[in-house]
């Protein structure tokens, strides 16, 4: 398990041109952070398949840029930042704006979206369902805060905003969650 960047840096620096050392580093990264990366990708996109694709791209990018990693950030923050940037690229791409089911069942208008299906069936609890129903900027900040338990500084780094913006988004996200929980308890 990579507790910090030290081990990763050691692996890479020990043999920067050794493909096997780099592969070993990638495996370590996947062991340690595969779930974190996939969960964050899913939290941003709410799409299972896209989370798979994003996770793949994140680790391939990480593999390509291992030599650029410096301990200015934790490994996890570094990977979460790559995950977020990759997810946003995916969502922006022309291809994904055009994604539709192409076959008959979808054309009949009887399908709930695949992401709703997955969340409804597989979400761990109601709180996750509520968080995943929030607009992206609120759910992201809540997930970084409560699931990943990042510091304000780390959240700002991952989100690419100031700490003040993080505080403001957290404030509004909490209000929205309280409102959702009140509605749920009112039945």
């Amino acid at each position, binding site marked *: 398990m990579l507790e910090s960047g030290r081990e990763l840096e050691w692996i890479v620096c020990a043999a920067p041109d050794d493909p096997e050392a780099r592969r070993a580093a990638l495996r370590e990264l996947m062991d340690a952070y595969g779930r974190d*990366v996939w*969960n964050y990708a899913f939290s941003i996109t709410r799409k299972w398949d896209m989370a798979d694709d994003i996770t793949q791209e994140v680790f391939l990018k990480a593999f390509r840029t291992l030599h650029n990693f410096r301990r200015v950030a934790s490994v996890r923050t570094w990977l979460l930042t790559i995950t977020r940037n990759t997810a946003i690229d995916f969502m922006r791409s022309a291809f994904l704006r055009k994604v*539709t089911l192409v076959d008959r069942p979808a054309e009949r208008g009887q399908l709930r979206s695949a992401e709703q299906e997955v969340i409804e069936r597989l979400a761990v609890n109601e709180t996750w369902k509520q968080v995943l129903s929030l607009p992206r900027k609120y759910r992201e900040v809540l997930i970084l805060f409560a699931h990943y338990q990042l510091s304000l500084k780390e959240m700002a780094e991952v989100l690419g905003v100031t700490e003040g913006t993080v505080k403001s988004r957290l404030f509004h996200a909490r209000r929205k969650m309280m409102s959702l929980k009140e509605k749920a308890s009112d039945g």
Partner: protein
Amino acid sequence: MDDRLDRELKEDLARGPLVRDGFDERLRRRIEERLDSARRSPRRMLLSAAVYAAAGMLAIAAVWMGVWRFAGTERHPADELALPVHEQAAVSGQGYYTIPDRQALMNAGIRSAFLIGLRRDEPNPEGAGVISEYRTMLIAERDGMPQVVAEGSGILMPYGQEFWLIRAVRDGAGGQRLIAAPAEMSGAAGGVPAESAGGEEARDAASGGVIQEQLLFAGNRYVSVRQVTWSAGADLSAPQERLWVKNVEMLVADLSVSDGTSAEESNVALFELIPDEAAGPVGEEWAIIREPGRWAVRYPEESEGTEGRRIWRALPVTLPPAVVSHDRLDLGWDEIAAMDPLARDAYTSPAGDLAALVRSDAVRVVPYRLPDAAMRTLTVPLEESETIVMVQWALDQYVEAWKRQAALWLKPESGDR
């Protein structure tokens, strides 16, 4: 107040969002395979349109100067078999992803060919619902670029060491059934009738109601079929819809057997193909449909608040190679978008040399590892409402065998409609 909420949030969100682990062994393997592939392949040439175009221009010069020499396909072993890709790999002992080094790749030309099966739907002129037409094309290298080397009606499906032909037969009473037989029997009595032929047998079967069938997927030995039934005397606005997965042999013409109910309909249940999958359909209905980049599973479920209508739920499983022998994209979506911003789906060859990029109005076939890929791109127009139901790949020496077989069995539709 915030402290209490924060505590609750941290407790409730401590675990991941879903009860199932998204980062599983399957995804880990996929990443490692992609890494292997990337290491063996040349640096992507599609990073920017400018680089892409520049490479194309250089290649024009190279071709003009006679630098390019394509080896062509010169081998014609008599014992070539029409094996699907996964069986070819088993026989030849070479993996799908054995991609040669950069220079070898650039000199190799195009190793892959594929059969692409299409379905086009249109309103039924004889009543409710839709009728469908099918066509298959074989796309293979000719004169150094991918070209349509054979085309004909119906779905020509490689099955084991032979080819089967699937046709949609109209019954003259508003119904349409799918019928399959070995392609070599297509001209024989008891083989595959022409799409519009119908016939007494079909008409008799339709007398108890109207059945319309559509092919959603064909691959290896399985087909996914949508079946819509209007019972005799029933309200035409309320058909019953069923989706089955069948072995293609279950489509052998026997129209008198089926009326669309599970008790009498031969089909393959999901658990027969994926025995370890705990989730999924209660009954035997399920479907294989195309989602961008992959073949996916849906199954029906009654749901509250939908007035008895069924919801087709997604089941996030990977179909086994027996169903889909090759279902992995060699390109990232960013690379696909760079090649064709209008692409909404894509397929890539197991050899990593051809990509079929699917737009709403065309399929663009790109030999994406060649430096002059832009020049060698084939665009196959799609008709309105035409969708892909089959993509099957052949590599190397099997390409010639497929060309010969496809030329034999793919014919323009004959007969009147």
